[in-house]
């Protein structure tokens, strides 16, 4: 094991020499790459610092986005159907109420002259 390490470290010495001998053009490009990578890191950090909520949104809600959208559509549909039914019921009740009110008086009452006189008398009092 020690012999292995000894050889390895001698090889490493030469490898370091090789790394030091990389030409200027290549080291220049490596520098540019590093700067580019760091600029991307800053963007990532800025996004995170701006939006802790965004981080939660992407980490927690995004994986369940489909389910959430499906639930939202379901709730919206149920609410819409319920509202539509309420309008329908209100219309039907209106018709029924009118019918009931109309049915309170026999049809002959409208032909009775005394009733007409009573209606006009009450109307004038109001």
């Amino acid at each position, binding site marked *: 094991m020690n012999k*292995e*390490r000894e*050889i*390895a*470290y*001698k*090889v*490493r010495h*030469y*490898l*370091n*020499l*090789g*790394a*030091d*001998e*990389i*030409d200027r053009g*290549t*080291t220049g*490009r*490596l*520098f540019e*790459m*590093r700067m*580019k*990578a*760091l600029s*991307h*890191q800053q963007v*990532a*950090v800025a996004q*995170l610092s701006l939006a802790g909520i965004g981080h939660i949104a992407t980490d927690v809600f995004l994986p369940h986005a489909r389910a959430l959208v499906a639930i939202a559509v379901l709730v919206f549909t149920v609410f819409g159907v319920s509202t539509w039914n309420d309008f329908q019921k209100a219309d039907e009740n209106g018709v029924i109420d009118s019918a009931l009110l109309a049915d309170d008086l026999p049809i002959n009452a409208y032909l009775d002259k005394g009733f007409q006189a009573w209606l006009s008398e009450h109307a004038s009092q109001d």
Partner: protein
Amino acid sequence: MSDFLASVERRAYKQALFAVRDGEAALDIVQDSMLKLAEKYGNKPAGELPMLFQRILQNTIRDFYRRQKVRSLWTTLFSAFSSSDDEDADLLETLEVEQGSYSPATPHGSLEQTQVLAIIEEEIKRLPLRQREAFLMRYWEDMDIAETAAAMGCSEGSVKTHCSRATHSLATALKAKGVEL
């Protein structure tokens, strides 16, 4: 992050170069690895960066191999004239890199050092992928066995085996070429 990338970029480039044997492709691999590290792990503690970076680097090198495999498959299918001069090209490229600014005490010493470096780098390139990864991470990047195992996605026992075999292969190959370390 900046200090870490500055300290590791040259070795990362050389690692990629050993693996893919193409300077431009090696630079692309290093760039992709740096970007991924900065974008995804920019807020990680400094102690975790070496392992994460090595993991990304090795994965990016493997992606390159996969793409190259697909490309060479198509090339083989559509062309009967595909060249296989990689070995020669690599040798020239290695020799170019060696004419750098390192200056030992004597010209003779400089020449000898350059020759030994060329032989070592060539033998490193010839190592099997996993052995090379383990050897470079363990002994060049100074990562411990657990970190190396985590970066390679294998057991600590496998890391030890890869390192041992790599060192043995290197020692044997260098001895055969008259290089005594």
